[in-house]
């Protein structure tokens, strides 16, 4: 296995988006239900909770859970 350009790009993208203050996965998780309800009600959640938005952009695992939670909540309102 050799380090590919793709890995370098991933690393540099993550370095580029690094902030001095970031939410951990746990703090993002704590806010996720509120963030997602704001999204579903058409409010600007990204602007109201920018640290959550940034964490979801950066963390693939949290983003995956967020996307599937959105789907699950869709089923609840049907």
């Amino acid at each position, binding site marked *: *296995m*050799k*380090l*590919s*350009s*793709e*890995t*370098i*790009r*991933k*690393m*540099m*993208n*993550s*370095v*580029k988006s*690094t902030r*001095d203050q*970031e939410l*951990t*996965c*746990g703090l993002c*998780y704590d806010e*996720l*239900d*509120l963030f*997602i*309800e704001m999204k579903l009600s058409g409010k600007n959640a990204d602007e109201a909770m920018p640290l959550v938005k940034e964490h979801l952009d950066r*963390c*693939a*695992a949290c983003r*995956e*859970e967020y996307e*599937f*939670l959105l*789907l*699950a*909540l*869709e*089923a*609840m309102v049907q």
Partner: protein
Amino acid sequence: MQTRTNEDWLSDLRGDNQDQAIEDLRRVLKRGLIYALSSRIQTDLETQVDDFVQDAILRILDKMGTFRGESKFTTWAQKVAVRVAFTEMRRQRWKDISIEDLMPEDSGDFTPMVLSDPSPDPEKRASQTIMLEMVDEMLKNDLTDRQRTALMAVMHGGMPLEEVARRMDTNRNALYKLLHDARKQMRSGLIEKGLTAQEVLEVFENG
């Protein structure tokens, strides 16, 4: 199924109406997970979702005191169920893979690293080689062993954070902090060399 307020859910789940409330919650969570995971789980979807929901209900009953009431109770509960499902799915998906499996072959000294998709343009190829050696040096000199291992497992191996954390005897939050520190170290290292991440990225752009 009766419509409940957040307060109704909490009091029913804690009180005399617990059995009915658990069954109602089970239906809500199952419906959501079946819908969300139908594209992800190809076999025994219902059985697997039943197991996830059962585990989620135990977690919800245990953690109900941490519900802050800022969202609907069912949104919070579904969030717990999705976390339970993904934790288990990731554990299954990665169960036979060690961190060592994800390291580059020459991870002992991290050299030599060779571009897997070399550019046909010799000048660009030369720039990429220089940058690659610089990143290699940063990984080797600026990061701790734990930072380097975690970074490579996530960035190179694509392993989810909680799976890397489990193998490194830590938790997802602590691992996130470790990686955050590593990214800050790399950012500082680039600044010392008069570079930004964007400038390195431009050298590795396709085409």
